[in-house]
């Protein structure tokens, strides 16, 4: 059976799996960006407690594997009375992991804003919150978008791990199809191509567009 016949026969399951992968990707991306912003700002805070907890969070999530974190959240958290279903456990683990990597990007982006901008905001009597929201963050965002593009690809790849806690994503469906048909080359080959198309023709162009859009908004294009 060649790969085209394979796709024609199994497309509903591949499509369902791809849908689940995309859903996990979006939820994890939203959570990851929120955590990255929070932790990145906390790491720059002058409050020792805030800074300490951000550093701890970042080191723990960057120092261990995503798979370890995923299993821990799924198998161990219920023992603490915090039972979460596999769908939630999946995107929460991936999002928290990516958030830790993103926090470093946020921090770097904020530090890359020229000092004069901070002083100017101070000179026109802005509050720290105003300064961050209206002057610093928009410029930091433009600076840090290119590495976020790579991180989003890592995020997409990371979602494949949720199949190991039986979330029915593309990876999971592929494994199931392989288990019942033994058409390994076709099944895994088709999945490889789908992931590649998602990464190369959806995620990357979107991030490029976002970069150009933000640069235009900032009058830098």
């Amino acid at each position: 059976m060649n790969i085209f016949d394979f796709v024609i026969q199994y497309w509903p399951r591949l499509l369902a799996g791809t849908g689940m992968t995309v859903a996990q990707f979006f939820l994890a991306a939203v959570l990851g960006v929120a955590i990255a912003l929070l932790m990145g700002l906390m790491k720059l805070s002058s409050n020792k407690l805030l800074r300490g907890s951000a550093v701890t969070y970042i080191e723990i999530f960057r120092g261990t594997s995503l798979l370890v974190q995923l299993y821990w959240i799924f198998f161990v958290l219920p023992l603490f009375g915090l039972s979460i279903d596999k769908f939630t456990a999946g995107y929460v683990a991936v999002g928290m992991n990516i958030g830790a990597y993103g926090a470093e990007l946020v921090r770097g982006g904020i530090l890359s804003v020229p000092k004069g901008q901070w002083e100017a905001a101070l000179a026109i009597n802005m509050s720290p919150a105003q300064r961050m929201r209206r002057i610093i963050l928009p410029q930091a965002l433009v600076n840090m978008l290119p590495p976020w593009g790579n991180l989003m690809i890592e995020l997409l790849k990371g979602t494949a791990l949720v199949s190991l806690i039986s979330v029915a994503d593309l990876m999971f469906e592929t494994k199931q199809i392989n288990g019942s048909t033994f058409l390994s080359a076709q099944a895994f080959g088709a999945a490889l191509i789908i992931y590649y198309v998602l990464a190369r023709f959806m995620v990357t162009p979107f991030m490029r567009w976002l970069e150009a859009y933000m640069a235009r908004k900032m009058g830098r294009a």
Partner: protein
Amino acid sequence: MFDWKWEFAWEILPRLVSATGNTLLAAGAGYAIALVLGLALAIAQRSPYRGLTFVVREFVEFIRSTPLLLQIFFIFYVGPQFGIRLSPWMSGMIAIGLHYSCYLSEVYRGGIESVPKGQWEAAIALNMTTVQKYRRVIIPQAIPSALSGMGNYLVGIFKDTPMLSVIGVAELIHTANAIGSEHYRFLEPFTMVGIIFLAISLPAAGLIRLAEGRVRRKLGLK
């Protein structure tokens, strides 16, 4: 709430320690493959043959944009379909080595591109062959600026070895899973695996930074 059992933790510690050995072995072997193959991919991307450059470039992009987990499955299951049987270790090493060689090729590429143009011209002026040029002029100068990226991926490969558990390589997560299902206790094994990972990757990251500084100083690069 929860009950952490110290006796149980002590009892399973030796098994986890020996699994740590396997994890480190897998990371080391995978990294060795990636170092060599990555250099080959980086040099191939600079070859004058446009066809070869294009194919290698697209291959690297493809591997970098698809999940390692899927690549591990692909290599492990597709071989037998064509009569090639690979052991879990073998296919795991090929998958992880290949995946990271693509990342390392980008690191090398950056390093090679940072070598000033005059050095290339000087090598040509001295009538060096391509092999001599790379071995004696370009690579020694490209490595220092590639060092930090190379170090990061060593830690990265270590953190990705748990994915090998899916094809039955007895590394840390595989062992923790086995212990968990034997005793119906997941708290201790998974928590200990997490701590082992932290205990290795954090000092390793620090050591790599130290080593990097030392190599740079030795090469007279400040």
